[in-house]
């Protein structure tokens, strides 16, 4: 044969220059065939890494760079501004309540769907997942139309307020922000637990029930250990979505410094348009980026521990 063993770049060049085109083509074909697996592998990895860097890593760096554009002092000032602190408080309230409510719902609903057979079960499961597939803007809209000035439930709320002497408003208020947040994160926890309980089956619970254990004991001693990691995982996803929600909350929150959440505060700063306020918007964003990264790390830890526990 023309060449044996490893073919160097120079050899390729020589072959080509010597106009040994046939041999070149043949050799090149051999080379591609022998190494095609490797070539494809590195092309695919290259595409993935490029996508990963451009779409996921670069935006994070961009936030940090822009947040620090005016120096540390103004960064600190942006984070400790009164509006930011108030927004942080509302965000945390909404997140904690949304996670708590959806945890209760997730546990009860997944127990119902996986441990019992009843008519309309599929419909019920589909209804639970509704918030996944609809625009968050519609969630905000739905609450305005129920509890707003001309909403049909307004008289009901007014009646309750009159009777109890309270002053609860379910639109354009912190409770409204909480409700909208609950709406968009509603299925997050049940969706994580239901598949786990399906694979676990019912036999253990049935045996426990036959031996006379109460419902709560069965749940605590038998069901809960199975879903521990799934529940935690769902709570993390729920929290991450809750503190970042924008569209739904935007519709029902109008008072900056009172009912604004961090994403809304970022929007207000960004839309103000001046170079200073845009830098402040990115400073506040960096706070949310930090929270998002913490959630991602927690999620990965839980995923890892959960997998190990399964074995």
């Amino acid at each position: 044969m023309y060449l044996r063993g490893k073919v160097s770049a120079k050899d390729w060049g020589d072959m080509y220059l010597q106009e040994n085109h046939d041999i070149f083509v043949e050799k090149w074909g051999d080379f591609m065939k022998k190494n095609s697996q490797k070539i494809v592998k590195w092309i695919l990895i290259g595409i993935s890494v490029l996508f990963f860097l451009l779409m996921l890593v670069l935006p994070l760096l961009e936030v940090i760079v822009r947040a620090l554009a005016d120096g540390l002092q103004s960064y600190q000032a942006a984070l400790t501004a009164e509006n930011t602190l108030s927004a942080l408080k509302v965000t945390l309230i909404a997140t904690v309540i949304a996670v708590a409510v959806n945890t209760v719902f997730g546990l009860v609903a997944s127990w119902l769907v996986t441990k019992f057979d009843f008519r309309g079960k599929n419909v019920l499961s589909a209804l639970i997942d509704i918030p996944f597939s609809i625009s968050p803007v519609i969630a905000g809209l739905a609450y305005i139309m129920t509890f707003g000035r001309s909403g049909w439930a307004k008289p009901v709320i007014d009646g309750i307020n009159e009777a109890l002497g309270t002053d609860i408003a379910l639109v354009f208020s912190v409770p409204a922000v909480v409700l909208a947040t609950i709406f968009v994160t509603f299925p997050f926890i049940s969706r994580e637990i239901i598949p786990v309980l399906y694979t676990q089956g019912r036999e253990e619970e049935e045996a426990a029930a036959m031996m006379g254990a109460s419902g709560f004991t069965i749940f605590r001693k038998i069901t809960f250990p199975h879903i521990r990691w799934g529940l935690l995982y769902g709570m993390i996803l729920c929290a991450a979505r809750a503190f970042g929600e924008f569209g739904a909350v935007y519709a029902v929150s109008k008072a900056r410094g009172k009912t604004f959440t961090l994403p809304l505060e970022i929007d207000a700063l960004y839309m103000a348009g001046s170079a200073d306020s845009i830098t402040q918007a990115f400073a506040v964003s960096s706070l949310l980026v930090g929270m998002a990264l913490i959630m991602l790390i927690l999620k990965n830890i839980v995923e890892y521990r959960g997998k190990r526990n399964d074995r």
Partner: protein
Amino acid sequence: MKRAQIKKRKSIIPGFGLSMGITVAMLSLLILIPLASVLAYSFRLSGAEFAELMMRPNVVQAFVTSIGCALAAAVLNCIFGTILAWVLVRYEFPGKRLMDGMIELPFALPTAVAGITLTKMYSDTGAIGRAFEKLGIEIAYTRTGIIIAMVFIGIPFVVRAIQPVLEKLPATYEEAAGMLGASRLTIFWKVIFPEIRPALLTGFGLALARGIGEYGSVIYISGNSEKNGTQVVSYVIMQKLNSGNVDYEGAAAIALVLLILSFVMLFAINFIQHIASRRTNV
């Protein structure tokens, strides 16, 4: 026989009534009743008014933009998502763990943050936008920008849908096909693709649904210009809640159409999946 078994099961595990009560009550109060209000509100418009609103150029254009961009982004996500999932499952390379852990960043990153960041990156003063501007391509404040934002928020849906399927698919299938002389492309289309198709469809559907309804990450990079056709449906709805002349009925009507659209799409995808799974099972 089966019926009797089911009945017996019902009575053994306690808590059916209680869990049913709580589930239905919470679902109704928090989700279904508010959504029903949207329905009720949109019926306040007469049929003619409803039709007139839906035929308005800006409303039609918003639907075209939202659906078109979401479709394009979902297709792109299927391509990149499949490559990413494949690379993460089958290959070893430095930084793989980090990449795997970061795929869900778009879920965790607040959409408003993603929105303003992507806008700044792809505008003509940003790192990437500047390079494209030299080539004469504008990204921010065009439909291309909307698609990029939707690709960003949709990518985890596709990757996470396909990854578990690929993990379970043994490499011996491909090896066998390869030994029988199939080319790499044939192996992909005949061996791998049929296996991941249902998962790909799920990911496609989720990414599409998310894209059509998306608000936070899109509204900054889109520029929301009626002239350039960069208003999305969510923006048009929000505008009717915000501007000086609030139009709840109009907002509810557009929202209703968007809702129906999402449901039809989800239904269609479930249906295709159902048929596909039946075909492979036979």
